Every structure is written in structure tokens, then in C-alpha cells.
């Protein structure tokens, strides 16, 4: 873990790698030793969640489920809660948010190229997609062979919120948790000052922020194709796949940022908005959530 004092912002910043990306935690208004201790706890929690729900680890709980070959598996309470949540999101999105849709990524590779899969492979792959094809009766899960689950859109946000709970328990400082753009702010900075978050510009990714959000408390999540897309015949295909069609959502914003009570909620609202395509802004307005869309 790297730990440093950011003089220009007057806060402690702990950073580490977890869940496939850079993670940082900013602490305002507490001393170094406490900030270090809390940061270490948060890192341990993020690492625990990563190890448990990583698709890439042979020993993860998710791998155990994905390698069950159609046999019934019994899951622990935490996994059961995540599956319940995933099912709820599936229902609320009428099937558009689906944790079994990850296999579509085997044929869709959003590498900025123009390689679009053919219709036959899309149809074949869709046969292995769909929450309604598996059986989930807490605590027993039967996942058909050739299907896979992944907690993309849930796992990282869940880790942010869990680490936020941990920080709140350990200290009363203003803490900002940022795990690869999924953010939770536990409270204002010293002097009741808000935190200022820059939103990545999809047209100049990673270079500077186009817009900023000021926030005292809450979760922030961004869904976008700033870094992941396909470009063919002038059509930009976002990385958001519609599991009902097997195709990327058309006319989705480049990026949707949502502010909500928790990072989980913000992340899911942003994903839902992306799945709305051209209707994303209307959807967010109807939901009456603070948001920023970049097209």
C-alpha cells in the first residue's frame, strides 16, 4: 500500500491495487496513524471481496459456482445476499441487468477495434445467458453447465460500500473511497467542505476532468464507454450489452454518472440508465436522481 500526504488537497491518501484496478482512499481530518490503520482495514476488506468473487481466481467462491457443472451448490449468507440482490435487479430491469450475461463478452471484445461478432455466434451464446435459466432457492443454486455468473456492476460497488461502513465505524473523518471510479463519501471534509470529484472526459480519457461534482456524502458511480468500445462504419458500440438481444445498447451515452445513497445504488442506476440507450437522460430525470450524462 502506498500512503502519502497530498499537500495541495491537505488530506492523507492511501492507494493500492485491488479488483483489477487502482483503488484510493482519501482521509481528511485525522492523523496519519489512524488513517493508515483504517486504510489497511479497508484494503483487507476489498481484497477479501476480490478473492471471494473474482472470476479469475481458481479458489474463489464464484469459480466454485461457475465450475459446478449443473450440480446444486449451497452458498454462504453473504453470497446469498448478493444473489438475492442480483435477482432483484434482474426483475427491476425486466431482464436487462443480468449477472449471467458475462459470456457475451467472449464474443464481444471492446478493444476499440471494428471486430463485430457474427449473428450465429451471438445466437449460440445467448443460449447460455439468462437468470431465468438458473434455479436460485436460497441457499441452493443450480447453475446450468455452460453458464457463468459474474458480479460486474455489483462487486466493486459492494466493496466500496462495505469499506465505507468500515471507515465510518473506525473514524469520524471525512473519507472518500474511490475504487476505480466507484466512489463513496462518508462525510464532508474539514470545515464542512464538500469533496470535489472530476468526471472523466470520454473524449480525452484520463487527461482531465470535464465536469465536477461537489458532494458532502453519498455514493457516486459512473458507467461509460470511455475506455471500452467498438467502432465500425461510424457506429460506436458501447460496452453495455443488452442480454435480451446479445447486442450492445444503441445510442447509449458515453458516460453516465449518478449520485445516490450508496455506491451500489448509484452503480445500478447508472447501469440501468445506460441500458436505456437514447432514453438514458429521461430515465434519470424520471428517477429524480442527481446525475451527469456525457454524450
Amino acid at each position: 500500500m502506498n500512503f502519502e500526504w497530498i499537500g495541495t488537497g491537505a488530506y492523507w491518501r492511501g492507494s493500492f491495487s485491488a479488483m483489477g484496478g487502482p483503488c484510493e482512499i482519501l482521509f481528511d481530518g485525522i492523523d496519519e496513524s489512524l488513517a493508515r490503520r483504517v486504510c489497511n482495514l479497508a484494503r483487507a476488506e476489498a481484497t477479501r471481496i476480490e478473492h471471494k468473487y473474482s472470476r479469475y481466481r481458481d479458489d474463489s467462491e464464484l469459480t466454485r459456482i461457475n465450475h459446478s457443472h449443473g450440480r446444486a451448490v449451497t452458498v454462504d449468507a453473504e453470497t446469498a445476499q448478493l444473489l438475492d440482490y442480483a435477482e432483484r435487479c434482474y426483475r427491476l430491469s425486466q431482464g436487462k441487468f443480468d449477472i449471467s450475461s458475462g459470456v457475451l463478452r467472449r464474443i464481444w471484445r471492446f478493444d476499440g477495434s471494428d471486430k463485430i461478432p457474427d449473428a450465429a455466434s451471438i445466437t449460440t451464446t445467448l443460449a447460455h445467458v439468462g437468470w431465468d435459466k438458473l434455479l436460485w432457492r436460497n441457499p441452493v443454486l443450480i447453475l446450468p453447465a455452460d453458464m457463468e455468473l459474474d458480479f460486474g456492476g455489483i462487486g466493486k460497488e459492494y466493496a466500496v460500500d462495505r469499506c465505507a461502513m468500515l471507515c465510518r465505524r473506525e473514524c469520524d473523518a471525512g473519507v472518500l473511497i474511490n475504487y476505480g471510479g466507484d466512489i463513496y463519501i462518508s462525510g464532508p471534509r474539514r470545515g464542512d467542505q464538500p469533496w470535489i470529484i472530476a468526471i472523466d472526459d470520454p473524449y480525452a480519457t484520463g487527461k482531465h476532468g470535464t465536469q465536477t461534482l461537489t458532494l458532502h456524502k453519498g455514493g457516486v458511480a459512473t458507467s461509460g464507454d470511455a475506455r471500452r468500445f467498438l467502432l465500425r462504419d461510424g457506429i460506436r458500440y458501447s460496452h453495455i450489452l443488452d442480454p435480451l438481444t446479445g447486442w450492445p445498447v444503441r445510442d447509449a451515452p458515453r458516460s453516465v454518472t449518478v449520485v445516490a445513497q450508496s455506491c451500489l445504488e448509484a452503480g445500478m442506476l447508472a447501469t440501468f440508465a445506460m441500458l436505456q440507450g437514447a432514453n438514458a437522460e429521461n430515465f434519470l430525470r424520471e428517477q429524480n436522481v442527481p446525475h451527469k450524462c456525457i454524450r
Partner: protein
Amino acid sequence: MQLDERSSLRSALAAASCGLLGISPALASADTPDNFQVDSALLYYAEKDRVKVAEFSGIFTQTLGEDETISLSPTIDSITGASPTGATSTDKTQTFGTNDTTPANTLPVKHFIDHRFAASVSWQRPIDRLTKTVLGAEGSAEHDYTSLGINASIARDFDNRLTTLGAGASADFDTVLPASGIVPQGLAPLGVSTNTVTAFSTPAEPVFKQVNNGVVAHTVTSASGTIIGGGSTSSGGLDSIYIPHQSRGKEVIDGHIGLTRVINRRTLMQFNYGLGISTGYLTDPYKIISMIDGTSGETVGYITEQRPQNRLRQTLYWETVVHLPEDVIHLSYRYFWDDWGIRSHTVDVHYDFELGHGFYIEPQARYYTQTAADFYHHSLIDGASLPDYASADYRLAQMTSYTYGVKLAMPLGQDGELSARASYMKQTGISHPADAIGVQTTQDLYPGLRAMIFQIGISFKL
């Protein structure tokens, strides 16, 4: 997606998220809930050939809520040994009563045993996010001294919490009742031999008469002839003429304001100003002063000491803490002055060497120097007019002390610490002042002090 429940989607998601976070398993934790903290220490202080103190102290802190704590701190002291009386050594045996003699060329001391019990309670609570208050009360009792006090303080963060301003006040009410049961009159001659005792018949105010060679009256009688006070030379000890049944009070009011400022990522600085007023009986009832012959320098008698009834104390304090990448340096300076003429400087530095795995070693050095009180006299000349106030207490003399120590600490469980500290203190003053007369020039008029301090501390959370 064609949602039937558009408006309720957000609340449904919020409920689902809350459910997931609320029911999910207990958070990973590196420590147990910190709702009860124990800090305790055993201290042994030993002056060479003088006072020895064994002390137990503890702080028990219960967390009541967010930022709100209540703590109880008991202290038990056991003090034994010998304390200088204020009389100087001479080249002859000195007699302070039939059973109390001091050999030639030896500092007169008084042996004593005392126990002190003290307890304080402190309640800290926040007013808002930036403001904290502390209310406290304390009491202590020794067989000849009791003290009761209250205190309050407030601290508020400013400037994005980079600056903290604090202020506080305390009031203490003390009562002195010497072992004899009676408070001695100030600047009153002591009986030094079994010479004639002359009775007086002054009702209210005691009268002292130096008959010859330091011999004085030892009883005070009322107009009706009843003895209402006095001391018997046959009882031995440091008897003096006294007014009976008088315990005496002392009130101490203190206030302070302080500023703590984060200078940069590594440096914290603190400034404090304190103002204190003491009124009442500030004299030490056990201290005496040698009366010497103005020519030979020989001791001819003793009188009790007498200090002013008021004392105004002021303090300026500066501290800085520097966090190096691993280690921490603490440096502080304190300037003290009062209207008794005492000015003191204290410089203290300690350095935490982190040894890894929670172990650290902390060397410490401290320098202290003070000027004498205006009314400090190592002795007074017999026959000369007495000053209004006089004391030969070594603590009011010009002096310098150095303390060197080292502390070693190791972790104890998840949140505990076990530490041991050893310090050596050396105090020196003016042993051969320019105004020494006759045989006084052969004597050490400020014998100084050396002491060792050992402390074992333990702290943990329950």
C-alpha cells in the same frame, strides 16, 4: 426496458442496496470494539537519601457515544523518606527537640510517611462536529491536606480543521491541616532547647518572645488563664508556637487558552498561555529557616517560614511534533513566571524510534532552570529585622535540573501497549552563595538532589 414501476424503481433499488449492506456479514475487523479503555501505570520515584514515592495511577475510559467518553482516574501514592526542613547544615550538632538531632555537617531533614488518594472524573462530549467540551471534577486526600476541584474546557476546530482553538478553566479548593493538628504561625521562632518557658496571657493573638539565645515562649494562654495553644519542648520534634485549631484554606484558579495548528503534513505546533491565581495559605507548615549569627555564621535558632498569601502565575508553552517517515520528534519549551520572582525555562525533547512491529524506544532529555523567589533565603541573620516573607524551601531557590530517560514500549494484543521507562534526574543549585557568613562558607547550602524514576505502564481495550 419498459418499466411499469418507474417512479418506484429508485426506492426499490435503494431498499435492495440497503438490504444487502445491512444484512451482510460482520465487517472484517482488526480490533475489538473500543468502548472501554484501560491505561494504568506503576511509578517508583526515589531520591538519593531522601523521599521515595510509589504510585499507582489508572485511567478507565468508557465510550458513551460518538466522540463522547467518560473517564475515571484513581491515583494512590505512598510517600516515605526524609525531606529537608529548610534549616542548613552547620559544623555542630543541631537539636530540634529531645528526640530530633542532626549531626554536624549534615542537612537537617524531617522523616515522614504519607499516603495520598486522589480521583478525578472527566466527561468529554461534542457540541457539534467541530466543537468538543470536557467537564471534570477531582478530589484528593492526604492526612494533612485535602483538595477538591472542578474544571471545564472547550476546543473548536477552524480553518478546515487545520487549526484548533481551546480554552479552559479550573478551580481548586484546598485545606491544609498539619500533622500536629495546628497550623504554625509564620516567621515564629521555634523552641530549640528545654530552656525556660514563659507564659503569656494574650487572648486572641499569640505573642512570641525571644527570651535569649533563640528560646521562646511555648504556651499561649487566654485571658482566663486557659492554655489555648503552644508546644511542649519535652515532646520533641519540630515544635513551634502556633495558633490552635486552625486548618487553613487555599484557592487556586487557573485558566488557559491554546492554539494547535497543522503546519504541514509532518508538523504539528501548539501554543498555550496559562494564567493562575493562588490565594490563601501558600506556606509550607513544615518548613523552617535557620537563624544565624551575623559574624560567626553559627546557627542560633530557627523560625517558621512565611509566604505571601497570593501568587499570580503565568505560563507560555510551545510544542512541536514532527513526524519523520518512521519516527516522531517531540520538542517543547515552557516559560513560567510569577509575582514571587520565579522565572523558569523548561526544554523537553523526546524522540520515538520505531523499531517495527509496534515496538519503539523513546529517549528523552529535559532541562529545567529557575530563578529564586524574591523571599528565598538560605538563612536569616539573627537580630536583623525580619522580612515580611521568607522561606528556605529548596524548591524556591535558584536551581537547574537535568533529566535523562528512556522508554521502551511493545504492543500488547491488538490495541494494547506495555511500556517501561527509566529516568535519572539531577538537580543542582548554589551550594556556596556569596553571602555565606563564617562557618557557612564551609557548608553546602544547597545540597541538590538526585533521583531515579521507574515506571511500568500498561494499556488495553476491553
